[in-house]
């Protein structure tokens, strides 16, 4: 599908809800632009608006997730966390960003300058590209791609290139080891993540993200898909935690072993870009998890409880989406502040000996369920 609809197409097939939608606003803007400018300019202007929206969302997400992580960790570690800058310390991450912006971006003498400076930008671009097919609210999507899920798994695997590049070009043994670990880890865990995504694709019968969401109008896949969907969900969460290099799989950084792993030599804004990309990646994988297993922006419905379902419909779809996503982010943060780190061989054992066979078997099971229409 060409990149025409920077603002999404209204979807009316399953439009059983009378949920408030952002489509009206985007359609109005689209119409007004079409009246005022020629179609080429409309396309350009819409793409610029979409680009600014992504960059804005990117920056805001980075700030919010950093302060969220610090507050969650503080809560788990019986301490207060940042509480000086702004009300209840909520502007702390803004202050930190400012600090990183004005800091000198050092390039070590022995480093490969070109690759060294390119690596954080690739990390950032990959994270930004991943934003495109995600449905943030009802009918609100930057790029309605018919292979949305495939696109996400394909692009997210580019992340490893930036990490390998950073590790190699730093000319530092710790960085190199971190990058090698990370390469082995991301490539392995992608398989499980991909297979658990496939289970939902099999159930929903589509790779298109809105299609998958609409297929959950009568219940989320995690409830409809019996135990196999639950297994797939658990494997998905484990695999994406590893894929985003988060604890307990943070071997690429592993500060007690490798000081800071692949970004040991990075400072200032270049470091901040890695940092930002990591958090946005966490957001994206959680958004994908929420979309596939928890119904994306679909409200929570219980069978025939009409009144309850009606009340749920009044909650805006964006709140449903962000609520589910942030719940998953919280779970991943919970892991980080509770578990010790795995060793590299244990990490690979877990993937190749346990998660991969289980998810393969699970996929076969789900295929059988989908063919025999055993799901709800």
């Amino acid at each position, binding site marked *: 599908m060409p990149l025409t609809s920077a603002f999404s197409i209204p979807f009316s097939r399953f439009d059983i809800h009378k949920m408030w939608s952002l489509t009206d606003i985007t359609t109005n803007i689209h119409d007004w632009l079409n009246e005022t400018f020629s179609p080429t300019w409309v396309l350009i202007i819409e793409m610029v608006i979409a680009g600014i929206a992504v960059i804005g969302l990117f920056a805001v997400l980075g700030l919010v997730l950093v302060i969220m992580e610090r507050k969650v*960790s503080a809560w788990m570690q019986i301490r207060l966390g940042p509480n000086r800058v702004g009300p209840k310390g909520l502007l702390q991450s803004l202050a930190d960003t400012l600090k990183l912006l004005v800091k000198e971006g050092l390039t070590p003498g022995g480093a490969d300058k070109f690759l060294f400076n390119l690596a954080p930008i690739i990390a950032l671009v990959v994270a930004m590209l991943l934003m495109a097919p995600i449905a943030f609210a009802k009918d609100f999507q930057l790029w309605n791609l018919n292979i949305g899920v495939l696109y996400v798994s394909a692009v997210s695997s580019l992340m490893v290139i930036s990490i390998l590049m950073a590790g190699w070009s730093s000319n530092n043994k*710790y960085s190199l*080891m971190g990058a090698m670990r990370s390469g082995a880890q991301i490539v392995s865990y992608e398989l499980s993540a991909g297979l658990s995504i496939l289970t939902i694709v099999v159930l929903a019968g589509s790779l298109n993200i809105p299609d998958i969401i609409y297929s959950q109008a009568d219940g989320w896949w995690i409830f409809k898909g019996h135990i196999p969907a639950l297994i797939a969900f658990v494997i998905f969460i484990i695999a994406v935690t590893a894929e985003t290099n988060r604890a307990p799989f943070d071997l690429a950084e592993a500060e007690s072993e490798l000081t800071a792993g692949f970004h040991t030599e990075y400072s200032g804004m270049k470091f901040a870009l890695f940092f930002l990309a990591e958090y946005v990646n966490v957001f994206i994988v959680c958004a994908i998890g929420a979309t596939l297993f928890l119904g994306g922006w679909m409200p929570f419905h219980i069978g025939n409880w009409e009144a309850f379902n009606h009340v749920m419909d009044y909650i805006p779809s964006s709140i449903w989406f962000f609520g589910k996503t942030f719940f998953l982010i919280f779970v991943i943060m919970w892991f980080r502040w*509770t578990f*010790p*780190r795995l*060793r590299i061989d*244990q990490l690979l054992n877990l993937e190749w000996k346990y998660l991969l066979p289980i998810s393969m078997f699970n996929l076969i099971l789900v295929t059988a369920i989908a063919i025999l229409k055993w799901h709800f």
Partner: protein
Amino acid sequence: MLEEVATSTEGDLVINVGPQHPATHGVLHLVITLNGETIKKVEPHLGYIHRSIEKMCESLTYRQFIYVTSRMDYLSAHINNHACALCVEKAMQIEVPERAQVIRVIMDELTRIASHELWWGAMAMDIGAFTPFFHAFRERETINDIMEETCGARLTMNYMVPGGVMIDLHPDFQRKVKEFIKLFRSKVHEYDELVTGNIIFRSRMKDVGFLSKEDAISFGCTGPTARGSGVSCDIRKLYPYDVYNKVQFEEVLETGGDSLARYMVRIREMHQSISIIEQLIDNIPEGDFQAKTKAVLKLPKGEFYTRVETARGELGLYIVSEGATTPYRIKFRSPGFSNLSALDTMARGSKLGDLVAMMGTLDLVIPDIDR
């Protein structure tokens, strides 16, 4: 497999862990030869925090040199001071009042708990869990507060002097210690829930960093490191000092020899220490807290040696006296130095990540190794 790793020379990667590195908890410098992630050799380099404490002690009087020893193993400052006081008392044949002896033992055991708490948090941090550190410090703070009230210091106490202790206990001491025991008993299960029972933790610890009984003895390992390998070496049991022979406690022994065994020894030792404190806290005899001694101490000519059990192992103090007011020569036998020497044997053939876990279970305090 092990020999193959040890003999092949291709693909060697030499990395310096330290002197500034988050895993070494100080300025220890390890030169590690790696084959991929597998460790071929670990070579500790010392001396980054050498302050020539032994030499300094030679120009300090027998009352003064105790203050320097608090800075050696700063996590068991009381016990270091205790060793010095014991050695001077042994040389001058000073009779220490029973009250002072009981106070000393209580303080020692509180220090041991505080030290093990810090070790527990720091070791969990070494293997990548951050939260236990704060849980450990929650209880450790209570001990520090108790110390602060009585000794006026939280880390380098300088509380024990030849002949007893420096000042009497704070009136609140007994109540606070009992409160601490209650707090500790109510919180200690969190340690097991958060770390000991964790499947990742156990897989990181089990069968890792194996130290056989023979190796432990030949490297001169002491304390929980040796007891994890089944070597009975608790000085409090073998050569009791002060009132240790009057209290009931059991020498904690584990036979595993791996990181988990050393971990379990320390966890169980905390419970033993609590039990020692419980036996003594209600039975502190009345009387003097310090024996009457001369203002200037002069040791008779000769050589004197005492040993005590610190939180890390056996601390020996060897004084050579020429009959003057200052020692002719002082030598400390620090537990950390011998325990560190076993690291190479333990680490060969295992992964880099495990080295950090092993160092965690050795409970190294670098100023204690270097002095």
